[in-house]
């Protein structure tokens, strides 16, 4: 963002205080040098950006066209080029590798939609209620942020022990105390593992939404609410007509960020299920990790990563296009 703004500003100053404007032939090199200065100053940042972000991306993409297995790990430049083989393997949905990737993709989509939706809903509701001043508000706010502040491993492994079938707290509460289930169901195996995963993800993710929305609410002028209540608008109407429309730009960023984080999240599912997640909770990041690190086939893993990148770029692009057009329409 700074990159686009700075050169324009540079040119403007340039035109104003170029003293030798009338000196004819000498003018151009000096002007060039001056014009180059902002770019020169940007160079270190640009170089670092390329080093930190672009090089690994390009490397990853290059790897996806190679047959990179353990035999070439030490000198992976020497790994044979395999053309589109890795991609063909990944998208051949009739074969086991492609079918597993597709299944994992669908699970991840469902998981992401539910997790982002619930995080946003709980976060927004909590933030709206926390707007009112009442005794203990500060403590509650701090308490709400605890799941977000805890180290991932500690938090998730605690959940794993709580979800254990025979000795876990969850089954103890559901069965022994509330009597909601017949016997002890498994939470970390089979279909229920999706619910377990979603629970931990929402528990960990909603405080971020809460924090974000809370900041957004500070910007809504109090007068709007006062005027609305004078006009006889109730709480629900105020939320629907004032709060939500005013939060639109905040929500636009929040949902996008939550979507990308949740879709790509690796730590949480990995700590929960290790290298072999149950089918119902087989998220794509762990699936790709397994396809590269565990089976030592880094070319296939990279190809899957590139496909994932393309998908996420597409979603992000469409999302931005759609939301900005919608806003344009709203402004018009």
């Amino acid at each position, binding site marked *: *963002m700074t990159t*686009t*703004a700075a050169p324009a500003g540079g040119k403007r100053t340039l035109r104003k205080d170029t003293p030798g404007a009338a000196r004819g032939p000498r003018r151009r090199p000096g002007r060039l040098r001056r014009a180059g200065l902002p770019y020169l100053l940007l160079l270190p940042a640009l170089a670092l950006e390329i080093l930190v*972000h672009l090089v*690994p*991306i390009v*490397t*990853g*993409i290059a*790897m996806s066209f190679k047959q990179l*297995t*353990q*035999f070439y*790990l*030490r*000198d*992976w*430049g*020497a790994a044979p080029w395999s053309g589109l083989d890795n991609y063909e*393997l990944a998208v051949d949905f009739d*074969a*086991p*590798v492609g079918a*597993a990737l597709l299944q994992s993709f669908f699970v991840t989509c469902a998981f992401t939609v539910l997790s982002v939706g619930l995080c946003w809903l709980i976060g927004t509701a909590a933030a709206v209620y926390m707007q009112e001043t009442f005794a203990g508000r500060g403590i509650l706010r701090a308490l709400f942020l605890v799941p977000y502040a805890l180290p991932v491993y500690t938090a998730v492994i605690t959940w794993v022990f709580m979800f*254990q*079938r*025979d000795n876990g707290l969850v089954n103890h509460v559901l069965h022994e105390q509330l009597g909601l289930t017949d016997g*002890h169901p*498994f939470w*970390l*195996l*089979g279909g229920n593992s999706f619910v377990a995963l979603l629970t931990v993800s929402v528990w960990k993710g909603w405080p971020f939404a809460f924090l974000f929305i809370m900041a957004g609410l500070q910007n809504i002028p109090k007068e709007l609410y006062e005027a609305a209540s004078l006009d006889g608008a109730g709480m629900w109407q105020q939320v629907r007509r004032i709060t939500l429309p005013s939060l639109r*730009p905040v929500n636009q*960023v929040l949902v*996008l*960020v939550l979507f*990308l*984080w949740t879709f*790509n999240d690796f730590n949480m599912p990995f700590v929960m299920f*290790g*290298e*072999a997640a149950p089918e119902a909770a087989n998220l794509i990041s762990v699936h790709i990790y397994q396809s*590269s*690190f*565990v*089976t*030592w*086939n880094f070319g*296939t*893993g*990279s190809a899957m*990563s590139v496909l994932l*990148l393309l998908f*996420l*770029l597409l979603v*992000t692009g469409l999302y*931005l296009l759609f939301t*900005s057009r919608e*806003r*344009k329409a709203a402004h018009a």
Partner: protein
Amino acid sequence: MRTFRAAACAATAASLLAATTACGGGSPTGGGGSNDKPETLTYWASNQGPNLEADKKILTPELKKFEKRTGIKVELEVIPWSDLLNRIVTATTSGQGPDVLNIGNTWSASLQATGALMPWDDKAFEKVGGRDRFVESALGSTGATGSDPAAVPLYSMAYALYYNKKMFADAGIDGPPATWDELVADGKKLSRDGKWALGAEGSNLSNNIHQVFVLGKQHGADFFDSRGEPDFTSDGAVAAVKSYVDLMAEAKIIAPGNSEYAQNQSLGDFAKNKTAMVLWQAAASTFESQGMKEDEWGVAPVPVRSGAPGPGTSVNSMVAGINMAVFQNTDNLDGAVKFVEFMTSDEEQKILCSAFGSIPPVKSAQRDPAFDRPELEVLRKTLAESAAPLPQVPDESQFETTVGTAVKNLFAAAATGREVTTETVRAELVEAEQQMTKQ
């Protein structure tokens, strides 16, 4: 303003996306090691004791001893098992790694194929006292057959049957079972009142592999054919996997909850008198740390179908253990070999193996009276007479993942009351074999 926000969104998105593909790569690295830094060594140790701190406490005085003798300072890093293989793979790719490292002996062939480890030819072995110093079965898991070993055996272990003496006495059983039929019969007497006969780590892929590999041997099946190609679906392999899962599905002597165990919870259950038996390697120190006294448990060879462990179809353990390797890119080659010599010397073997509860793979150190405990007697005999190395093929780690997952899935099926038949077992193994990508 609008474009600015869109740009900000795009920038955030791009940097988040970058994390997806960010898989670093290294530059091509040259041939062997050098002696550019003869003063220091970096050593990656595997986690052998109850925790990382305990390992550091045990190893540090020995490293000081080495420094006193040779003037070489050893930088120690103890790495948890969950990270070790990834760290080695990353080090291999970047060429930046330790000088000396421990590896799980089942990884030997996989890591050997990467070329990251210094091959131990006869000349190199001479520097640590020669091949003959080491037990044959331990040397059998140091790399692919027919090539120079990728590592030297450091600690050895084998599987044994640990049983709870009091629970056996209460059920009126006078000794540990020697055959699987006896184990099932005893198990049915032991599994009652919320207690169970046998523990398992159904979600621990490596442990699943160790168990079904041995059962495969007992059914005359190997999971790889003579050319090193996967062969998971032979009748013997299917029968072996089914017989293991059937201990839960059919005999019902393993608690269904064990199918989700992967953090050694089965050892905790054993120490708390909830299960009467576990099949484990060198478990004494864990039992002690869980508060179980040494006279409360007994140890016996893992059952075999014939009742008498031996070679061939009477194999009752994999060759478990840790190997020590020299990283090909070391900048202190001579020092690294000297350090391996030090760690495999009789003196250090006695100290370290007694501290970690393992068996020395060095013959002369094995004879030390420190290893005369009944538990180690069983493990040593097993290792010498009835243990077989896991397949020494480059695809070994893929085998652990795919077949280990198949066993995990079958346990999950058994635990949730679905039927486990020869067909369902075969279907899981077919799927596992299909996932072995051609290399």
